[in-house]
């Protein structure tokens, strides 16, 4: 299904740009906070001062260094995206594989459950949860994963079903391979590209969701976030501070989502079995 994918994907410009962007942004998110000299919660600087040698992006209205705020915010956003994407992938992949392999009432049960979960507006649940319970953002990320697994499960189930009746799987079963053996040794590795696609798509969705919720002020205001920075900076549009306060978080958020989007689109293009057959 994907023997020649390696060389093909290395030539795809979208894959190269997307992965470069993501690596850079992840680097900034995890290494950046260690390098900035200021604590993002330190309010001891002169509010609204312009960029200087000590504070490359200036100071915000609360007297906090914008660069440290930016990198810590980026880190929180990326961590939220990773938690939601990993949890969603494990949940969706697991359920998809199990229901494809088991079939029967287990399959029926999980697919009806998927229908129901898909009809719940995830944003609404997250908003209610965030507004009334103020949980830590990891809990919100896990909730998001619990509400978005069906898309992954359906895709993986559909592919696993076509694999289920292929020759080598039938051979493995005839030779007496147990359910666990076939799922872990044959089914799971062969669907590998699907995990990548779903992972990139889920990161994109989760980061977007985190930025929206933070922008609406539904997260803990003490927790730095790109969305929250945008919403604060917009209030000071009449000052000349937008170039160093509003534009950086907008740019970083766009680059992050762009990287994930390019990666998803490129991987889909390379690995989509329907495109493969018809080439």
């Amino acid at each position, binding site marked *: 299904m994907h023997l020649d994918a390696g060389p093909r994907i290395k030539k795809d410009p*979208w894959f190269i740009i997307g992965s470069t962007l993501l690596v850079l942004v992840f680097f900034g998110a995890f290494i950046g906070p260690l390098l900035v000299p200021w604590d993002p919660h330190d309010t001891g600087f002169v509010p609204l001062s312009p960029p200087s040698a000590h504070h490359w992006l200036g100071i915000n209205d609360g007297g906090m260094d914008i660069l440290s705020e930016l990198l810590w915010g980026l880190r929180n956003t990326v961590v939220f995206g990773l938690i939601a994407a990993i949890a969603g992938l494990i949940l969706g992949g697991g359920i998809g594989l199990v229901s494809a392999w088991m079939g029967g009432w287990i399959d029926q049960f999980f697919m009806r459950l998927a229908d129901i979960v898909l*009809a*719940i*507006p995830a*944003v*609404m649940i997250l*908003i*209610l949860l965030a*507004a*009334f*319970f103020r949980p830590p953002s990891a809990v919100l990320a896990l909730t998001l994963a619990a509400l978005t697994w069906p898309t992954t499960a359906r895709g993986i189930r559909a592919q696993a079903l076509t694999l289920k009746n292929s020759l080598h799987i039938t051979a493995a079963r005839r030779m007496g391979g147990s359910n666990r053996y076939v799922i872990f040794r044959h089914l799971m590795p062969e669907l590998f590209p699907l995990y990548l696609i779903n992972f990139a798509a889920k990161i994109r969705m989760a980061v*977007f969701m985190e*930025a*929206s919720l933070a*922008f*609406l*002020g*539904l997260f803990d205001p003490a927790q730095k976030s790109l*969305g929250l920075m*945008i919403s604060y900076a*917009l209030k000071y*549009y*009449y000052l000349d501070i*937008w170039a160093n306060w*509003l534009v950086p978080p*907008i740019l970083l*958020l*766009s680059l992050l*989502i*762009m*990287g*994930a*989007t*390019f990666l998803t*689109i490129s991987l889909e293009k390379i690995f989509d079995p*329907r*495109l493969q057959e*018809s080439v």
Partner: protein
Amino acid sequence: MRTRQHKWSRPVFAYLAAALILVYLSYLLPQLLPGDFVTAMYAGADVSLNALQEAELKAYFLDNQTFGEYLGNLVRLDWGYSAAFFAPVSTLFFAALPWTIVLMGTAHILSSFLGFFLGVEAAWRRGSLVEKSGVGTMTVLEGIPEICTGALLLLVFSLHLGWFPAAGAQTAYAEQTTFQWVLDVLHHLTLPLITLVAAYFPGNFLLARAGMVMVLKKQFVLTAKAKGLPPGRVRYAHAARNALLPLVTRFGLRFAFMVTGALVVETIFSYPGLGTLLFNAISMRDLPLIQGIVLFASLMVLVVNLCMEWVYTLLDPRVSHAS
């Protein structure tokens, strides 16, 4: 063979049951959520309440009704009284609904039609320079979230250049003729609409193009070309029809999640739709209002899903044969 009538009405009962469950959940919502209006309003205020006053206020704002009464009131459009806005919930709701429908409806219809048409044309011209640059631009646009487009548009075009208003859906207290009023509404609509179209159109374009590229490889398209049909007819009457289904699905899903989809853009541009109303209601812990909007948004998903099942059978005969 079953009658057609039976087949059309079959999903309705399942959806009605689901709707009843949703209404029941909405009825339970006030007991499930912590925090109440009295605490939220008086915690930061300068008055301090003694225990008796607090209990009385809570009793005043809390309505004890059975599920039957709740259902009856729902049908009679008596959705409770918003304590934060000093108005009945239904009044607030129906004042906001048209703006959301105007904004989201226009954005969805515009981006769906544009996406479908341009996507089909792009697939037809696959490999040309125009197509390649078009796909590139759309991929980049797809990567820019609506918060960023919205904030930048607001900053540049309404705050710095002053070409467009920064808030609202119409000029307040203006004495205008109907024509002027329409122009005024369009003027207010422009920036949020552009933001939404920029968010939805690229995805539709890429989806339509991908579907169409696959359809164009099919034998029947070759047959249609070989018959000597004009290219426009091959494209739209034969090929594009088969690439339409995923777009319709996306349109339905997006339309179903209209209220939540409008949330960010409406908040950025202070557009007085349901998204802004929900946002304000949540920040003031105004439960009856939250209840009303959440229930409407959830029921909307059900209704759109039901409609989609019917549309599928209309568009694709295979679906009705399969069931």
